[in-house]
């Protein structure tokens, strides 16, 4: 490769004299934004401002990541290292006349990642591809999602939830049951129904029944080691579903799943009812702890979590047979999760731990579903020889 070709595109642009608006227009039209070149990403922004920064939650990169202004133009840029296979969600922060505007999506990048707190710009480094099993496959027979509700004494209210029944659902089969925390968000932001339809169609995961449950009150209270929530799941929801549906009636057939605080809810429910669930599927669980003192840095909402996790770490015990644990390398929770893997393993559980070059977001959790579900509840692929 020639020296000129190995130079970043932005540097080749900056070498041009004079650099006018038309040349910048052509440059952006040609390259788009951010510009991905090998393991380098260049962010671009155009407009008048006093300061422009990229905001992200990538542990290891400076945050805010300040853009440089190209003199006598309205172009701003910054280049940074982004390893292959990475997915990064980000926004801009723009300061003008002592006023700062935050969470501004990149106007030069049409790609958005969606989550409960809105959409943010996203880009993928070389090597990342949206998995084909997350996209609608007309060949895959669709399962059914039905709305149901259950009267909960533990939570003192009627609790609505969504129930996934696989295609060809029939009474002569016994299905595993997955109970998913933040169920509506999983359905909406991870394309969970499409993923289930596709993976079942491909025989990669077992035909399964999935209960998508959402918090009924304050999520950060309900999911932070909350006895009524655990009782609702283990003593009300699971027994009712087991009585009504053809489900495997043993721990090996039951999995609790959740991400972030939903992961904490999964672990704490399993800890309170260790004989109910055989497996846990935990995606970036917020298992924050302290080794000394109480300064965990997470704010008051994390106090009950830290108390629970500290207690568990002091006396680790089996709370399931198998745990699929995954976390994004770029999120702050990577450190506690790396530690919890060992703790779970040493407590006598079989653990599969997977890190992804991604952050604390729904598309990361979507992309790990195949691996997690296929490990915990493999389909009949190994039986099929056409």
């Amino acid at each position, binding site marked *: 490769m020639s020296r000129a070709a190995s130079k970043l595109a932005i540097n080749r642009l900056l070498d041009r004299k004079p650099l006018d608006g038309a040349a910048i227009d052509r440059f952006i039209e040609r390259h788009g934004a951010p510009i991905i070149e090998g393991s380098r990403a260049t962010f671009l922004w155009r407009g008048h401002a006093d300061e422009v920064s990229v905001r992200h939650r990538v542990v290891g990169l400076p945050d805010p990541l300040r853009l440089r202004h190209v003199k006598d133009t309205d172009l701003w840029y910054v280049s940074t290292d982004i390893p292959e296979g990475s997915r990064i969600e980000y926004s801009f922060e723009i300061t003008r006349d002592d006023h700062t505007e935050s969470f501004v999506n990149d106007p030069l990048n049409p790609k958005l990642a969606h989550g409960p707190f809105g959409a943010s710009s996203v880009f993928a480094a070389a090597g990342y591809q949206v998995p084909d099993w997350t996209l609608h496959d007309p060949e895959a027979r669709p399962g059914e999602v039905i709305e149901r509700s259950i009267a909960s004494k533990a939570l003192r209210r009627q609790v609505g939830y969504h129930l996934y029944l696989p295609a060809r659902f029939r009474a*002569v089969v016994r299905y595993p049951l997955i109970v998913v925390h933040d169920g509506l968000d999983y359905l909406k932001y991870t394309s969970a129904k499409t993923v289930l339809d596709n993976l079942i169609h491909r025989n990669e995961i077992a035909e399964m029944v999935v209960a998508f449950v959402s918090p009924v009150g304050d999520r950060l209270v309900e999911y932070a080691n909350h006895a009524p929530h655990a009782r609702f799941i283990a003593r009300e929801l699971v027994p009712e579903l087991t009585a009504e549906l053809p489900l*495997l009636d043993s721990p090996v057939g039951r999995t609790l799943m959740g991400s972030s605080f939903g992961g904490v809810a999964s672990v704490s429910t399993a800890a309170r009812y260790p004989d109910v669930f055989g497996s846990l599927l935990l995606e970036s669980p917020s298992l924050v702890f302290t080794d000394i003192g109480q300064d965990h840095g997470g704010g008051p909402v994390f106090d009950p979590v830290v108390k629970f996790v500290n207690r568990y770490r002091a006396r680790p015990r089996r709370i399931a047979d198998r745990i699929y644990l995954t976390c994004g390398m770029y999120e702050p929770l990577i450190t506690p999760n790396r530690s919890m893997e060992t703790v779970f393993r040493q407590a006598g559980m079989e653990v599969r731990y997977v890190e992804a070059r991604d952050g604390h977001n729904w598309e990361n959790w979507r992309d790990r579903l195949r691996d997690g579900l296929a490990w915990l509840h*493999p389909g009949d692929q*190994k*039986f099929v*020889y*056409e």
Partner: protein
Amino acid sequence: MRTVLLGPQRFLTTAGTVVRSVAPEGPVATVTAGWEDRESADGELDEVMEGRSRNLHLYGRLSDVLVSDEHFATEALAHRDAMDELAGLYSLRLQRALDSVYAVARRPARPAVAEAAFADAVRGVRDIDDWYLRTVDQLYGELEAAASPEASEPIARHRHEVAQLLGDAAALAIAGGHVGILLRCLRLFAVDPRPEVPVVAWSAGAMAMTERVVLYNDRGPQGVQGAEVWDRGTGRVRNVVAMPHARRRLRLDDAVHARVFVRRFEPAVCLLLDDGTQVEIGADGSVPEDARVLTETGAAAS
């Protein structure tokens, strides 16, 4: 007793030619139970069989039995739960034993010591396979005692109908698909052709003809995992592990895995049944000398 095992028929259809050569005339009984609820979508197969196919509809019959014989259905479900539990335990034991064999195989040591350690580690895996199959036999025995197929009117009726169709057939063709379902159907309806009726079987069908059905898939979402014994087959073909799709499903470039695979199942030969393969089994149930089999280096050899 004439038996021909074929490779997958999806991309290269040789079944028609082979069936024509072993049974030029007369009806051909077909089994497509491995296709499960697509069992009846056999128009293409019938074309290949020149319109002579008579589908035994074993999957449909199984579904009928499960609906019409409640007692048998309950016991069959309990049996499957027990099989699932057993398979879970087997998988746990097997994975650890295989990890041990792979580790031993890769550890440099004096040749005599290394070979002895390897042979002993493989013996451990074979013991687990034997334990598993013995327990499978025991579970079948329990099912038989709890809900004897002979005592079931629907099963008896279906067996009679299947036997009649087989009695009229000039050949039996068994297609691939889900080998577990296929075996269940063959066993439940006692599919046992007369010795003079040739059998042509491919993919899962070929596996079902052997004494021991071995499952493998290194290309699944979980990556390389050890092969697992699943069940006993009909035993029409002896001392063979039938391996359809071996190139697509197995990491044959990993010499250690291939070596373990071969040693684990010997004296049975690991018969490679890739696209276009056609192997006529000898009258004594053995594999001909020129058949392509897996060797300890991972290469195929005749």
